[in-house]
């Protein structure tokens, strides 16, 4: 009896002590940011950021391997991160000077040598910057010069948005790569392939970070990874969170965590119904433009879809606002300019008077009908249009079955066009097969993306004119011609090869010349509609302001897209912190 009593008392004391310790711990709890990203745990996931299968933290990688600079889309200018200064030299090269006083998490200082390490090692895995880069050389302890064969804002972007890597980890590879570069060795050469094999099999034991946070092996679990402070890292005295918790998983997996208040910010594409449930719970939704969205592509070998007037009639016959809303709620914003470029980017590159002259293709089914009648089309007894060659306007529209928003866009567009008098069958196809079908020209109508998350129109126009048009040795790899659109286009501004113009618009440093090319691209796209943009996708990122204090949703920083993600920028610069 006494023994039992003693045990009980002992247990009570232990519980009391633990409670007290818990109380102390609660007072010292580190401030956390809870986000999410899908990653693969070891042994698949590893720390070699030059090899496939790396432990990939997506946008949050910048918090450990900071970029040289972040492009602020609203300003059209770069904000330096780990770079102190940068710019083109008079002789057409590019120099970057890193900030001094920053140390890697292994204690070694950040120096200009890390720039050589980063880019020379990148040569081994095919970084495209090396198409315009001849070598990287050290100017002084903190400065490196990039010796370029050509200059363009695109090249500058490729340099500045790259994540800095440590010499202490990759220095040996970089040194050998430097010798191969000097010797002109390339993929296929024996020495090159040997070093590449060595590099891809390399598994660093630790992740060496120069950002304000670092990732330690013991903080990676199946469920979440916790980034902890790297005291000597960039902006470690500026960031307002002690730790960054990243929950592992895709949209369906993290949804309960958002509802539960355990995940405070997510970049996932939540369905509108889920988004509405978040709003009901008081969770804010941040909507930044993604500069891309679904478009209706047609096969230009299929008559009469290869007729400009027919594509224009299609554009008039679809209510894009309805299409966007049923697909993605408030985050599906109808495309206005119908020019293959985001409405958010257009004013940066094109004069207002040109924009005013564009055809916005406002929903007008009557106009669409009269355009078809002018072409000699008639309606059959069942109301379906019959073209001037006597063929019913009957087509199949393929869409990626797994992409919920694109599937909704396809089904709504089909419903609208069928109501107008087309006979379209929407078919969901496995998403990889659907893409391949488009590459192979194995389609009549298809939903694919227009635009891309890049501030340069070149990249947006290479989607329709290159990726989905079987250009050269890129998209389709010669096995198909994509939508088979003739890139020699005649429009109100004259004649233009839109593929060449798109490529040229990203070359050189003459902004006025680039803007002129972009203007031609915008106007010609608007007139001939090689594809029909439906709507632009905006993010619907839940941000739980009960836990996070950040700028209001209309802050211009939320215009940042692509790799210049606003959330990592805000964390890095202290623009966001605990509520």
């Amino acid at each position, binding site marked *: 009896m006494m023994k039992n009593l003693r045990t009980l008392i002992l247990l009570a004391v232990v519980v009391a002590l633990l409670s007290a310790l818990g109380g102390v711990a609660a007072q010292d709890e580190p401030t956390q940011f809870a986000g999410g990203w899908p990653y*693969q*745990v*070891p*042994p*698949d*996931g*590893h720390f070699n950021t*030059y*090899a*496939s*299968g790396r432990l*990939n933290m*997506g946008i949050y990688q910048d918090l450990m391997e900071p970029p040289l600079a972040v492009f602020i889309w609203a300003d059209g200018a770069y904000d330096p991160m780990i770079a102190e200064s940068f710019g083109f030299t008079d002789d057409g090269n590019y120099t970057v000077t890193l900030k001094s006083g920053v140390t890697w998490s292994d204690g070694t200082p950040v120096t200009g040598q890390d720039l050589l390490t980063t880019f020379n090692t990148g040569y*081994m*895995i*095919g*970084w*495209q910057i090396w198409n315009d880069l001849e070598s990287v050389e050290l100017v002084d302890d903190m400065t490196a010069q990039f010796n370029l064969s050509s200059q363009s804002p695109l090249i500058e972007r490729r340099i500045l948005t790259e994540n800095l890597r440590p010499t202490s980890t990759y220095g040996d590879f970089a040194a050998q790569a430097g010798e191969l570069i000097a010797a002109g060795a390339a*993929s296929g050469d024996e020495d090159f392939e040997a070093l*590449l*094999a060595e590099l*891809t*099999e*390399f*598994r660093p034991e630790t992740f060496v970070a120069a950002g304000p946070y670092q990732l330690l092996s*013991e*903080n*990676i*679990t*199946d*469920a*979440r990874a916790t980034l902890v402070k790297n005291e000597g890292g960039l902006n470690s005295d500026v960031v307002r969170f002690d730790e960054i918790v990243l*929950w*592992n*998983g895709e949209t*369906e*997996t993290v949804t*309960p*965590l958002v*509802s*539960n208040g*355990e*995940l405070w910010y997510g970049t996932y594409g939540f369905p509108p119904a889920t988004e509405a449930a978040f709003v009901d719970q008081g969770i804010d939704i941040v909507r930044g433009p993604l500069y891309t969205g679904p478009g209706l592509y047609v096969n230009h070998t299929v008559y009469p879809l290869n007729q400009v007037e027919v594509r224009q009639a299609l554009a008039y016959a679809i209510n894009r606002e309805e299409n966007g809303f049923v697909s993605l709620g408030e985050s599906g914003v109808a495309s206005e300019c119908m020019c293959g470029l985001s409405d958010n980017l257009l004013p940066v590159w094109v004069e207002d008077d040109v924009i005013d002259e564009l055809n916005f293709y406002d929903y007008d089914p009557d106009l669409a009908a009269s355009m078809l009648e002018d072409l000699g089309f008639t309606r059959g007894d069942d109301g379906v249009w019959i073209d001037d060659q006597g063929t019913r306007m009957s087509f199949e529209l393929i869409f990626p079955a797994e992409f919920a928003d694109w599937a909704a866009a396809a089904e709504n567009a089909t419903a609208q066009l069928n109501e107008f008098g087309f006979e379209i069958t929407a078919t969901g196809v*496995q998403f*990889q*097969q659907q*893409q*391949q079908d488009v590459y192979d020209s194995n389609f009549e109508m298809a939903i694919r993306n227009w635009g*891309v*998350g*890049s501030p340069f129109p070149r*990249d947006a126009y*290479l989607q329709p004119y*290159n*990726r989905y048009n079987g250009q050269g040795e*890129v*998209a389709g790899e010669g096995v198909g011609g994509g939508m088979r659109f003739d890139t020699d286009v005649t429009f109100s501004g004259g004649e233009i090869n839109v593929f060449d113009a798109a490529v040229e618009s990203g070359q050189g440093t003459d902004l006025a010349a680039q803007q002129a090319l972009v203007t031609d691209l915008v106007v010609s796209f608007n007139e001939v509609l090689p594809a029909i943009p439906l709507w632009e996708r905006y993010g619907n990122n839940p941000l739980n302001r009960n836990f996070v204090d950040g700028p209001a949703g209309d802050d211009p920083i939320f215009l940042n897209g*692509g*790799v210049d993600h606003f959330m990592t920028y805000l964390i890095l610069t202290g623009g966001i912190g605990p509520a």
Partner: protein
Amino acid sequence: MAVRDLNAGAVQPAEPTRSAPSFLDGVRRVARSYTARTLVQAVITIWAVITFTFFLIRLMPGNPVDVYIDFLMNQQNISFEEARQMAASQFRFDPDANVFSQYFDYMGRLVQGDLGESITSTGTRVVDQIIRFLPWTVFSVGLGLLISFVLGVLLGTVMAYNRNSVLDNALSLFSSILSAVPNYIWGLLILIVFGVQLQWFSVGALRGTYDPTLDPGFNLPFILSVLEHAFLPVLVYVVGTLGTWMLNMRNSTISTLGEDYVNVARARGLTSSRILVAYVGRNAALPMFTLLAIHIGFILGGSVIIEELFVYKGIGSFLFWSISQRDYTSMQGVFLVITIAVVVSNVLADLLYSRLDPRVRVTGDK
């Protein structure tokens, strides 16, 4: 009385000489053996499935390089050309290589026990991946199966003994509902209702396989943590299969209760408990053990969605990832393990049944 030797004077046939059995005799004897035939069939089945899956997965849309190109384009917003260049540099896999030479290369390495390297994580051995993920699935699904089997057999017997009673009807309805709803629906319901709505547990804290702050090993905190993290998946496996066991056992028991030998046992005045255990229970449970053995084989394949749902990193979750990345070698490794598990469990079921029910063995030998 003298006994006439009928064989007297007859030529005695020569005593057959007992020569050593020839190789062919041995082959014939093995061929006649039920066990040996079953094992040979198993090996052939495994080879056939490996071959079938090898070609089947390569018929799936896309390939590892295409998937990686898409990933690079979407995440880094780089052009198709740049993504393709990077993918080509980082992968040793050539999607245009002859598929038959790939097959013979794979089989050649497989017979040496080499499952190859992951395509999407160059340098990572597939066997290491399987060793990392397999034990968690075996533990969670195995535990769930064991619990649901024991519970199902007990409740099924109770239902049969009380057939047509209120209890039987209630349990029949309950088990029908359990077996009619797919396990991932149960998983979602548990998460949403108990985790999110009622907040009975932290959805995040129960994710993963154990608390990372603990030292893995044979110690109580770690074991408790493992059990805690496996609780939800195990619960779903139990809920998802319990109804089937209950209904099967009920039907089997009712059928056995009508057998003559049970009536005879009753007529002999044996106690109810003895009849239950020795006459009804043993015979009614016989098909259940066969079912159990077969279910064990599907342990590995049946966990994909549940592991994804609860972020429980077992072989199912890994298979899901491998399929999404089109990592052919990793997929083949997992399929090989699943195939072996299914075939071996079927063989065990056959052998077990042949031991428990001699009629099967006799028929098989014929």
